[in-house]
């Protein structure tokens, strides 16, 4: 049971406030913000209490989504609901930010009114809600040079326009009705990989959490079939032969997915509703089918002048055709590090010392498979001792691998019925 819901900006501005039960006083927002700001640390605890008032909040899009509730309510339900609510707002407003919430407050009040009554969640299905929501979304599209780059010389179609920008899917779902927006459907396979490699080069832990997401702008789509790799298998027992099997440990599907063709042909059948849904989630831990995409060879020593020398070699083990983008290596350095001098192998890379997070961040915008990059960092650290070397590392690496999945999962085909009139275009979306 939810007593109030409010949305706060990170600065504490009231964006949305709705009291469903009229039980607790109106100063709840103030109390909550006071509690948030009183605490140090990167994020306050999810649940906070004040005189019998319990706040549960999530952070999405830089905003606080807060529900006040009673002590015995289910945290799973409330957190899932708040997440779902933010997803709905994102679907309806196009994107999630302080500005879009501010511009669409009437729409959000309308959503809340239909989704929750008297503190009880009624529905969050966008199929049901779309019959009730009347307000139109106001979307703000910031001017971006990227839009221009899609226009070829004299308006000709360029090769580049085959790739849709990642912002292509950030528009409100309902605009397609009135503004004659394109009937589009986006299917994304997103994998989050976390790998821990020991200092001796041994693979200590490898995890892949993947999901297939469908974002649908089609007003009436009766059925959609997504074909996965035929050799896709689940669990350890199903390994057939030695082929390049695509294997995951656990899979779970969205309620609406029908699996009658899944066992025989690995086809998911579903009728997507408007908006974004997570169709399938899967996990794989420990044995990855391929080697981790990066390898780091560090050498760390003190030079005679009391400076810390870090020589890093980073090798990309991807196939030569693919590349990683937005690679960022974060190297924790000893406390009190003053200045950094660097030698990088190409001008598009950059490195800087971030004193508040006590780390050197080395950024590589594009990293082709098979390449090897090296960097030399010299750090001025007053009072450097041999124990300070303990503080160096572990190195964290974040990156994006477009058009490549660690598990090898692929989408073979995507079929829609009824067949949409007009020519269909396929896009590959860059994350």
């Amino acid at each position, binding site marked *: 049971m939810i007593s109030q819901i409010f949305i706060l900006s990170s600065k504490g501005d009231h964006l949305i406030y709705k009291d469903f039960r009229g039980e607790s006083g109106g100063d709840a927002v103030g109390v909550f913000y006071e509690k948030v700001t009183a605490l140090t640390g990167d994020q306050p*605890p*999810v649940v906070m209490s004040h005189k019998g008032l319990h706040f549960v909040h999530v952070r999405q899009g830089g905003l606080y989504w807060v529900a006040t509730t009673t002590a015995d309510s289910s945290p*799973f*339900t409330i957190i*899932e609901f708040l997440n779902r609510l933010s997803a709905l707002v994102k679907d309806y407003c196009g994107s999630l930010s302080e500005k879009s919430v501010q511009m669409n407050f009437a729409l959000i*009040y309308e959503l809340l009114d239909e989704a929750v009554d008297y503190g009880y969640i009624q529905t969050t299905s966008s199929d049901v809600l779309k019959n009730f929501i009347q307000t139109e979304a106001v979307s703000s599209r910031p001017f971006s040079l990227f839009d221009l780059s899609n226009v070829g010389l004299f308006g000709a179609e360029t090769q580049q326009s085959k790739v849709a920008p990642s912002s292509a899917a950030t528009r409100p779902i309902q605009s397609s009705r009135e503004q004659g927006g394109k009937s589009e459907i986006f299917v994304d396979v997103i994998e989050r990989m976390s790998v821990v490699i020991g200092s001796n080069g041994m693979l200590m832990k490898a995890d892949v959490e993947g999901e297939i997401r469908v974002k649908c702008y089609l007003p009436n789509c009766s059925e959609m079939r997504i074909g996965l790799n035929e050799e896709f298998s689940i669990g350890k027992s199903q390994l057939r032969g030695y082929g390049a099997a695509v294997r995951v440990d656990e899979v779970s599907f969205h309620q609406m997915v029908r699996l009658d063709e899944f066992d025989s042909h690995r086809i998911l059948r579903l009728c997507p509703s408007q908006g974004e849904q997570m169709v399938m989630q899967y996990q794989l831990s420990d044995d990855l089918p391929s080697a981790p995409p990066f390898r780091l060879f560090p050498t760390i020593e003190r030079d005679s002048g009391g400076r810390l020398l870090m020589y890093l070699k980073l090798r990309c083990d991807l196939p030569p055709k693919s590349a990683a983008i937005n690679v960022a290596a974060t190297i924790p350095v000893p406390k009190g590090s003053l200045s950094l001098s660097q030698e990088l192998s190409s001008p598009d890379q950059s490195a800087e010392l971030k004193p508040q997070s006590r*780390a050197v961040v080395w950024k590589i915008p594009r990293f082709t498979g098979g390449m090897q990059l090296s960097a030399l960092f010299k750090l001025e650290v007053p009072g450097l001792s041999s*124990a300070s070397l303990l503080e160096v590392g572990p190195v964290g690496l974040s990156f994006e691998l477009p058009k490549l999945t660690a598990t090898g999962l692929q989408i073979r085909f995507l079929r829609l019925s009824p067949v949409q009139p007009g020519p269909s275009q396929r896009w590959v979306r860059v994350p």
Partner: protein
Amino acid sequence: MPYLGGEETVRELRRALSNPNVQSDQLRYRNTILKVIRAMSQGVDMSGLFSEMVKACATVDVVQKKLVYVFLCSYAALNPELSLLVINTLRKDCQDPNPMVRSLALRNMTNLRLPSLVEYVEQPLAAGLRDRAACVRRVAVLGWAKLHNLQASSEIDAAVVNELYSLLRDPDPVVMVNCLRALEEILKDEGGVAINKPITHHLLNRLKECDIWGQCQVLRVLQRYRPQSEDELFDILSLLDASLVSPHPPIMAATLSLFLSLCSGQPAVSLAALERVRGPLLAACGSGSREMRFTALCHIQLLLRSIPGLMGAHYKRFFCGYAEPAYIKQRKMQVLVELVNDENVAMLLDELKGYCTDVNAETAQAAITAIGRIGRSYSDRCLEILTGLLGLKQDHITSAVVQTMRDLVWVCPQCSDTVCFALEGCEETLQDSQGRQALLWLLGVYGERVSSAPYTLEVFIDGVRSEASLGVKMELLTATMRLFLCRPAETQDMLGRLLHYCIEEETDMCVRDQALLYYRLLHCGIEETRKVLQGRRSDPSLGVLIGRPAEPVSQWARSFNTLEPLRQGSIETESVSRGSPEHTMFDPKPNADLSNTLDCSRIEKVHSECVRCPTIPRCSPQSLQAAMQLVNIQTLAFTPPQTLPWRVYLYTHTCLDDAPHSTLILGELLYTGEEPQKAEVHKGSADGGVGAEGIEDDM
């Protein structure tokens, strides 16, 4: 954000709203109303526009209607008379052919929350229950609950309750679930909706039709059901098995709650259910939403209390991600500590070692504490890591390491040699009072083995004038006294200086009192002093980690799937970070892990003294108690009146907001009848927050 010129805005908007030109233009009218609502949600008081908004309500534009209703529901309580005007429009809307308009009107009619309007609302609500559109019925059903809570005194018509019961068979699943919710509220005094066998089986059969929110509600209500036979129980359980492993965490949690309450008599079945949810819970731990991950982690901690080995093989799932927020990392470390075994200890310690240098000081300290906990079973490996960390010479790390070592030595006396060796030279990096107190305690207790102990203490004693922390001063007194007992030649001079300062110049009563006590104690002779000061150095019985017995599920089953498990940790950190004596916030839990929250070394029986009252005050226990409370002495427990000897346990404590430690004074008042009264006083210094428990422990 009440900005300047709020009144100006109201006036301007009023002018616009009553302008006939605006009213005739649909779009302009709507935009003006939008402006009003925007200002309202920014916190500007717009109640002055109520009558204009009431007029705006009569329109065919549904969007405008909705907007006006948002406004009206917020300000209705301030304008009960004017709200009466809205009712007519709303009642008219209830007859509208469009079901959406009907449900909208009905919902807002009940959301106005005005008791004076109840008589006008009842008739449309009754009609709403029989409406042919499901969305109207949904609203009408909940409307009765709102109505009931609006005037709790008046009885809701029995006919309505019956109608609600019959609507449990409504074809629309949301109407069915709303009926459950409404009946729960209306029949709250009778214990909620009646859950008998036919209703239970009806609900179970229709569970699949509901969405996840509906399923959660149904599962929750069913917790009250008690199956009549074992066969029926197992029928229900097998029916629910699919929901137990549902990919939606809310359903999984609600089903497990139901399982635990249904099987409260069959622990084996509950344990099997816990095994079954391992997969879904672990999946929730890897969820994309950080808050969901946190919730799942907190609930895994509950499960581990009953099956410590449940997650043993999956310990790698609890390794902290690089970018995870501190509160998740700390929970994960708490779980990791529980999962240690001979196979994974090396891997685990290696991982924890990496967290010790985390940028976030709290995370680093939590990692060090976690290593200390593992050290109770694997002391050599852990001490090696801890000693290595001292080499970093960073104040927050050193402080955490010294505190951890103190706690470790208390439980594992065999570690003391290594610890004594490591202590040399770390006083230079220690900044905070907690760490220095720990160092002083160690120096006092193991002073004979740390060669530099007297010199370290001397530095402290020289700086005692500028010392701000009460706890450090108290600890310094005790440590110097203890060191004096084993190394008198080196310590005598500085002890004299310290006692002189504390008795003559110190302003804090607690420090002064304690110094006086030690001074008098020394007068009684060295043997007497030794008897009082040299208490136990360690308490191995506090428990080795591994042998912790599994708790029965019933210990925590009630708090599963509530906010309780998520809050437990936050209270602890709050009291630690604030450090004020907030023991009122501490609710004693039967499961409270004593060794975790309470460090016995910090509670000392410092002083035990008998005071004999020469005259017996003739007064009743009640008046005595009232008099005591006036001077901030609280009663802890007392024997029933008219029993001899009659005892009262009393306590009082200092309330310094900025002091991290507080002094607790415990007392026993004994009345034996003939003999004079006798009061025994124990005094000790205790951490804020754990004080209340310390007393129970001491008694």
